[in-house]
């Protein structure tokens, strides 16, 4: 039997139900009175998972880079020759999929035929069908996807930052792989990876919209295969605390240098609750240091060192985490020096308690706002549940972060040797 638990937040005025389905899948149903219903079915399997086995297997399997993403493309093929995009289209649903470092996700949004669409989602993602011909055909398409990324300076800047910050090859390798690595992919490799990672107990389904638990459960009972639980063993090389190299540059056809500054956070292997707390504290701290109300941003902009905005965020993953700061500047080295100086100054002279209160309020308001779209809600739910924490509690976690905690984090986390920078420079004439 499936087991249901209801979660509620009085302040957010939201409720959802978590179902431990008998197939082993965790299902989350988040009712929302909007026209669009959105469903996302995802596996904890991303580009970093290249060395793994099931408990009981004798040896580890090692697969080429880009298999998770390749699988995402090929899951839409079906044995009867009709691709799942066409089926969704006939229901009037809009389907899509994506792959990240740690996740592959399949999703759709619809305004009618929800049950049919959900049935299709659960069916095609659990019924792989690959042939040597279909694999060969996809190599051409993904090859062009890789080339498209090669022409995108923000994309190159991002991967170069990962290259500078991290030693682990799985972290900095392109999620799509390379033209060479995807040439090694065969239908058998796809089947093997599917067997390991596309197992209900390694997956989650989130549905958000004007739907009931009963509707979702009826479809899940009919379409989810029952399988024996498995244990997946992944092997990642341990990530050292140090950065791999402090600066990495590339030349592309851009008008001005584009930079991305990373600050590695080596304390990423905590318990889920501690990681969530750390993420909340980092979000508030980054807002205090880098936001548009603050001195640092406004000085850099006024002096013309920053061309436009400064993007910032904290990214936390199993095994690694970092802060990143992105922008355009004629002098990225000067920007880096100023950022380091501002942080050193704050470490020495302390932060402002008023700014702390204001930034906490900003983070709270941004969290509340995420509950205005079924897609945003479902995506956010998935982020939290894959991090093994309860989503609605985030408002309270944010609220419970103290000024002292953030000041301590500032002193501990931002040491100079954890900085790295990726710069895309314009091509030199001649």
């Amino acid at each position: 039997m499936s087991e249901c638990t209801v979660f509620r937040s009085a302040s957010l005025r939201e409720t959802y139900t978590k179902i431990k389905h008998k197939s082993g899948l965790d299902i989350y149903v988040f009712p929302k009175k909007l026209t669009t219903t959105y469903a996302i079915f995802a596996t904890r399997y991303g580009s970093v998972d290249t060395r793994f086995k099931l408990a009981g297997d004798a040896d580890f399997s090692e697969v080429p880079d880009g298999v998770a993403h390749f699988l995402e493309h090929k899951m839409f093929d079906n044995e009867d020759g009709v691709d799942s995009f066409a089926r969704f289209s006939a229901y009037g649903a809009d389907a899509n999929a994506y792959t990240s470092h740690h996740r592959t996700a399949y999703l759709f949004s619809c305004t009618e035929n929800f049950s049919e669409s959900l049935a299709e989602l659960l069916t095609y993602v659990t019924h792989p069908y690959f042939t040597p011909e279909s694999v060969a055909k996809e190599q051409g398409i993904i090859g062009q996807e890789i080339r498209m990324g090669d022409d995108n300076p923000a994309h190159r800047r991002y991967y170069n930052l990962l290259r500078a910050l991290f030693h682990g090859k799985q972290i900095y390798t392109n999620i799509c792989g390379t033209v060479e690595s995807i040439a090694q992919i065969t239908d058998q490799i796809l089947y093997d990876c599917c067997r390991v990672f596309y197992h209900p107990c390694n997956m989650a389904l989130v549905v958000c919209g004007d739907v009931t638990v009963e509707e979702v459960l009826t479809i899940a009972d009919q379409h989810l295969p029952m399988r024996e639980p498995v244990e997946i063993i992944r092997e990642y090389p341990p990530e050292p605390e140090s950065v791999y190299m402090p600066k990495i540059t590339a030349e592309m056809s851009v008008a001005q240098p584009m930079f991305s500054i990373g600050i590695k956070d080596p304390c990423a292997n905590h318990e889920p609750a501690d990681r969530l707390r750390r993420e909340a504290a980092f979000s508030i701290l980054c807002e205090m240091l880098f936001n548009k109300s603050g001195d640092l941003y406004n000085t850099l902009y006024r002096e013309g060192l920053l061309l436009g905005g400064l993007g910032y965020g904290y990214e936390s993953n199993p095994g690694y985490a970092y802060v990143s700061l992105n922008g355009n500047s004629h002098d990225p080295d000067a920007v880096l020096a100023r950022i380091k100086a501002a942080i050193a100054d704050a470490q020495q002279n302390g932060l402002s308690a008023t700014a702390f209160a204001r930034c906490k309020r900003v983070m709270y308001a941004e969290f509340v706002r995420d509950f205005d779209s079924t897609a945003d809600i479902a995506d956010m739910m998935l982020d939290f549940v894959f991090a093994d924490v309860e989503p609605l509690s985030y408002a309270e976690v944010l609220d419970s972060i103290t000024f002292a905690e953030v000041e301590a984090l500032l002193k501990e986390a931002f040491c100079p040797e954890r900085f790295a920078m990726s710069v895309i420079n314009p091509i030199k004439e001649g």
Partner: protein
Amino acid sequence: MKRYELANGAAVNVIETDRFKSSLLSINLAVPIKAETAALNTLLFCVLKQGSANYPSQAAINTRLDDLYAAELSTRNYKRGDMQILGFAVDFLDNCYIPDGTDVLGGSADMLGELLLHPLLDESGCFRADLVAREKTMLCDAIRAQINNKRAYAQRRCIEEMCRGERFALPLTGTVEEVDAITPKMLTDRYYALLRTARVEFFFIGSTPTDVLLPRLEHAFAAYPAHSVAEVQTQVVRRAELVREITEEQDVAQGKLVMGFRSGYAVADPDYLHFMVFCELFGGSAASKLFLNVREKLSLCYYCSADMDSYKGLMFVSSGVAAENRDRAYEEIMRQLEAVRGGDFTEQDLSNAVRGLQSAYRQLGDSPGALESYSLGRMLFGVNLTAEDMVRGFGKVTADDVIAAARRVSLDTVYFMRGPACGACPDDEEDDDE
């Protein structure tokens, strides 16, 4: 949607809804795109958001917005046909989520009024020279940075070439030379002229009742001057005369192909929905002709899709292909167009396209931004169809309507951006630099 008028004549469009935890308030100024004012308008809004009389810096403005529970301010500057739409919008949390009773609606409305009507001026009544100089530098850098996004740049170049001589071809940012030539005096004169001549449309989407909202807007915008508005007609070229081909070289690994078509339809045409269904069936989704053939069957590309500019009557097909496959992609795209023209599609293809569009228009009501953008655009073009009317209308489009629409579109300009050619092979380039 209900429409009200402020004492100064500005229109306020209100969509009252309690679906969302946040509300959207915007002020939109519509003026014709003109070579002599486009860059001034753009720079003006860059300068306005640097500070106002009571919030004299970006830091002061942003701190105030943060205190309004992270009210999010955005600047508008885009084309709707031959019109330039300028303005500010602010998105803020609903009162019931504000624990300390801060009046975020009033504060947000006041902030929009501040930015637009109480600018930061020097003793002579002009915009401050230092701010103007800095924002000119920033804008010039932004113009140069357009090359960074190759796909968007290719699309922009296609429009410039295709609509040359039409207002629509003018870049809203102007050129680096035009921006360089702007003085604080010119900008100040333009500011007052813009307020006097622009059509003004407010939008509010949220749960606040109008008896609370309207007095707050009257108060915030009391200083808005009297204005008289000239109607703007968008020039729609219904048919391309002959096909122009342009190839340019950039440092790219993948060629970017953009094919610009005249759709043959204007958004106010009674049969405009026929074209929309055709465009969706041709290249609007992963079940479309272009996706299934150029990508899935020939595996020439990762993306190949058709989209439209409804207000200007244009359709674009874009694809990223290896330079050596440019001709194959081009031929396949034209072959698929011929197929639709010949009626070579199924009832299922038609019904997929109709359902896709119906779903998209039903979803409008779930996004305040999308709802506002749709409502403002159709209002400016005198189209009185609600999203529900559109959903019903799509359902009436027949296969013959789609065939007729396919026959009406005409290819105008083929733009191709390719990587550096090898030295040995002289190219068939037809460079058309300005």
